[in-house]
């Protein structure tokens, strides 16, 4: 139905429907841990609306981007491991 685009999650190519959030793409890549807390605990999205900052990742080299607020675009490089 909807157009597919290609993004890379930690270097792995992934085809996703255009228009989905980066958070959704990461989950579709099978990744549960989006970032580590200051104490090293695994964390993932909580609020889904941009207030909790638990879903921060690196997008195209930009750090601390809230993946629930960002939308996938063709060729986007998403880095979770480095976040």
């Amino acid at each position, binding site marked *: 139905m909807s157009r597919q685009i290609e993004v890379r999650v930690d270097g792995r190519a992934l085809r996703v429907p255009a228009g989905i*959030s980066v958070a959704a793409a990461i989950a579709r890549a099978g990744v549960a841990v989006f970032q580590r*807390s200051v104490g090293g605990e695994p964390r993932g999205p909580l*609020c889904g609306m941009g207030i909790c900052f638990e879903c921060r990742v690196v997008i195209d080299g930009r750090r601390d981007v809230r993946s629930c607020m960002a939308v996938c675009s063709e060729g986007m490089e998403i880095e979770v491991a480095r976040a």
Partner: protein
Amino acid sequence: MREVASEVLILGAGPAGLAAAAAAAEAGARVDVIEGNRSPGGQIWRPEGATEAHPTTRRWQQRLLRTGVRVHLETTVVAADGPRCIYTVCGGEMSRFRTSRLVLATGSRELFLPFPGWTLPGVTGVGGLQALVKSGWPIEGKRVVVAGSGPLLLAVADSLRRRGAKLLLIAEQAPRRAVVRLARQLWRSPRKAIQALGLMARLVQVPMRYACWPLRATGDECVRSVLLQGSDGSIELECDALACGFGLVPEIAIAAYLGCDVECGAMSVDAQQQSSVPGVYGAGEITGVGGVELAVAEGAVAGTAAAGARVPVRWLARRDRQQAFVSHLDRAFALRPELRRLAAPETIVCRCEDVAFEALAGAESARAAKLATRCGMGSCQGRVCGPATRFLFGWHHDRVRPPFFPVPMAALAAIGTVQPSSANPACYQTFTMDC
């Protein structure tokens, strides 16, 4: 820095903000709306996928187009120099909005309460999971427990079910009798009654428990199971996702910063929706959580009043009718005291700074806790732990200081020195920057 001159500036393009914008513009005012998301509609009219607007939002957009309202999307309010000067950032660019009237329609956010395991990936808010799923988060075939409190539980459960999630349980902390009492009030609002009946019918296959709440989530890098307290003992369920939220709290940060009176966590307004600060109006959940119909009714009143026009009496009556339902809602979903005792000593309360319950339990106030532990000083600026510590310890919100959201230093520097807010002079010290 970009300068924008406005007559009525509206913060938030959810139901209340859209209604206020339409009303103010139709009363002849020059209107600007600032919205942080990519599309208007707020959380309730959040579009499916990121590209197309929700059908209801589209109708509002057409109405706003006709009246020349300018909607500034993906724009975040970061600071204010009094209620007539609002600073925003959009894609790294700062703007200064000057306005004669301000309508705050900032909505609400979920109340999250700490319990062991609540920080595990896979444990989300209820509205949180809904928002994620609408943006393409995979849920089909996943085993989901929906827990917490409030009407959102059923609405979200239904939406997850439609998308192929396997709903294991809906756990509502309120007792059944309280919800039944609320249901008896539904005749006053036929639309709500029809919605509720529809939800119950569609969810008839899903196990639902009242007086049931989560005690613990377990898993290594992701939630694997949840233990819940029920009226007849505890129950453990293996799951892939736990959506948990204990109702909604008004988003009052900017109102509090501007010096507007706040009562019981909500912005106080008069019959014209005006706050204690002249020229500052509030509409929707910021004045108390009451649902979409109330938000639209309040928005229409606030927008009209902010534009300096006379508010039609029937609009006021419509709002008052909707308002009457709110107290019933609050009573039905009142949070039980047991929820204050869910956290173990080592359970994290402030997720940004990893502050555990035991580090906070002895503190006298939010401010004392903040100074001693950094609780509330992380990226979310206390938006998650603030309402939680208010419920757990009775702490009031600490002073709000700009920037309201984390913002690049370069963008912040563009503001330079702002005058101290007369309502909140302490804000001056941290915000002033020499550049």
